[in-house]
């Protein structure tokens, strides 16, 4: 039987959670409710007249080829960004883990990009890849490839994936490095004595032991790519060319703030909110329960 500890203060617990509740209320519950309400309404631009239309906004966007296209773009973008940033940061972490001299210096440099604001990171890559003045575009030209992210959808996608992944590498690197350092050296040494090659040691011992970290980062990176990359896309391609980089979040912005169509924009936000719910569920169900740290 569980023993209950009597707790005398009746109001203190409420007082202690109050700030957090207030923040959630003001910055999440309130705007979310507004969005939910607006998603059922059609309003004129200046909000001087509005009417309730039930699910018309939703049916409108779900039939809109452009919206379905943005879902597709989001998936491609999220998967590519996650794969690139996690792959590279794992590689860097494994290498940094083996450095003995000056390890701190390497690690510090690798963390730097994380301090750069997304929009600035985006602009840096934008300049380097600019077809007319960019150094990378110039090199590519030298190699015989006419880089043009203003016209070529694939180039544009590669540009935003690089910019988004580059920013996330530092974060992933930190977690991977911590994960690597928590793997007992004795395991690896034992495998080495048994004659396992460095690659086999990594693949059969290190990688499986790293799986909790990997899974956690997978969720974090997908969420990042879906919801946190607006600044990068806005600063570089603005969703173009021909919407090839217009992810769902970008379309919410575009329809709401450029098109001033608040109903449609709100309906899209509601769909995104539901998506966040699904991600959170996945994280709770699998990351926190099944995979042991």
């Amino acid at each position, binding site marked *: 039987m569980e023993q209950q500890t009597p707790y005398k203060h009746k109001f203190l617990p409420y007082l202690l959670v109050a700030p957090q509740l207030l923040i959630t209320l003001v910055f999440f519950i309130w705007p979310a409710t507004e969005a939910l309400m607006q998603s059922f309404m*059609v*309003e*004129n*631009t*200046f*909000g*001087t*007249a509005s*009417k309730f239309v039930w699910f018309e906004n939703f049916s409108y966007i779900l039939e809109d080829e*452009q919206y379905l296209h943005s879902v597709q773009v989001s998936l491609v973008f999220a998967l590519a960004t996650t794969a690139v940033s996690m792959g590279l940061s794992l590689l860097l972490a494994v290498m940094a883990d083996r450095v003995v001299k000056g390890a701190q210096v390497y690690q510090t440099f690798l963390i730097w990009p994380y301090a750069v604001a997304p929009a600035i990171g985006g602009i840096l890559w934008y300049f380097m890849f600019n*077809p*007319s*003045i960019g150094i990378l575009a110039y090199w590519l030209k030298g190699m015989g490839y006419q880089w043009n992210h*203003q*016209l*070529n*959808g694939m180039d544009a996608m590669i540009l935003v994936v690089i910019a988004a992944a580059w920013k996330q590498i530092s974060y992933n690197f930190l977690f991977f490095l911590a994960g690597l350092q928590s793997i007992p050296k004795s395991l690896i040494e034992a495998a080495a004595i048994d004659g396992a090659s460095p690659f086999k040691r990594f693949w059969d011992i290190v990688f499986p032991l790293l799986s909790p970290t990997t899974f956690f980062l997978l969720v974090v990176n997908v969420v990042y790519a879906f919801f946190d990359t607006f600044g990068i896309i806005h600063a570089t391609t*603005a969703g*173009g*060319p*021909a*919407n090839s980089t217009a992810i769902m979040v970008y379309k919410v912005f*575009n*329809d709401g*703030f*450029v*098109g*001033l*169509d608040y*109903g*449609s924009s709100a309906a899209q936000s509601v769909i995104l909110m539901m998506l966040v719910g699904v991600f959170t569920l996945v994280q709770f169900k699998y990351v926190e329960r099944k995979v042991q740290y």
Partner: protein
Amino acid sequence: MGGVLNEKVDRIASEFNESQQEFIVKPVYKGNYTETMTAGVAAFRAKKHPHIIQVFEVGTATMMAATRAVYPVYQLMNDAGEKFYPQKFLQAVTGYYTDSDNNMYSMPFNSSTPVLYYNKDALDKQGVSLSSSESPSWYEIEKIAKKAQEDGYECGITVGWQSWTQLENYAAVHNLEFSSLSNGFDGLDTKLDLDQEHILHHVGRLREWQKTNLFSYGGRRSDAAPKFYNAECVFYINSSASYSSVEANVKKFKFSVAPLPYYPEIEAKPKNSIIGGASLWVLRGHAPASYRGVARFFTFLTSPEIQARWHQETGYLPVTIPAYELTKEQGFYLKNPGTDTAILQMTRVTPTKNSKGLRIGNFVQIRDVINEELEAIWAGSKTASEGLKDATRRSNKLVDKFLRRNF
């Protein structure tokens, strides 16, 4: 407005504030055109809006439809008892902002129109020249551009704001109906017609040219400018208001300005081009007395001296005839050849119903759609006909969406 223009706007405001004691005008920069409009709408919804908001030309239909939010300028001037002479304004400019009864709804401020910038050195080398007042034909431009490529220039022509310069103005100059119901002037229920014969002809040619770099696309806004500055491209079509940036950035060669090219077989006498830029809209909901200050400011703003200076310093059009006359008197055009190209092109004929302007709901998004489809055409993934058909269909869906919201 940003950058250098911001300083010039500030200067006008402070001069007005010093010129009288009663009212104070406070200019605030809210970002680019889209951001400014969004901020204005948001402010109105929160009842914290300014008296005056600067709205770009593509937002005109949205503002016109917002009868409960907008205080029409003709009414404001009348209510405030301010002397106001709409006939002194340039027809081709105010046309964009007047209703079918010729009432001015907003105050034109910074208006520009596309012109053709060219690398004079490249043309001199070929021993050819272009007039600064007569439109060259597209065939002439094609020939010069091809020759320039043979001479070592990487590309022939590049453009900024492609929907505006290559479709909207193309239609106006050739007297083609861009959108039904007189380009939307006679009703919101207008239908765009982009895949019509003559537009297809031009876009199809540009698409072919893109393959050999005779035409080189360089981005939706003015992102293509470096191609001209670096002497990559010989021709560059963009706003007359780009004049000062072109002047500041072109270092390696001499440049000059000509009117927009045209196809003589479509329209023997090219019509006026249409404007871009922005106008000032007045929002309702403030104390009646304060609107007298707005009226006073408008009078000050459109006085010949202020307008002439604004025109000369920025490359925007003078919005009134007296300001144009004053600039002429001051000898500005003689000292700066090419600076009157835009205004001559705007005023060369009386505007037809196809060259008065465009009034289409959701036009901001429609421009995006047109940009997207044109990009697909330039990239070769769609034919001109497929792209323009899709653009027409998608644009008209956006017009419907606008009607759905404006009840």
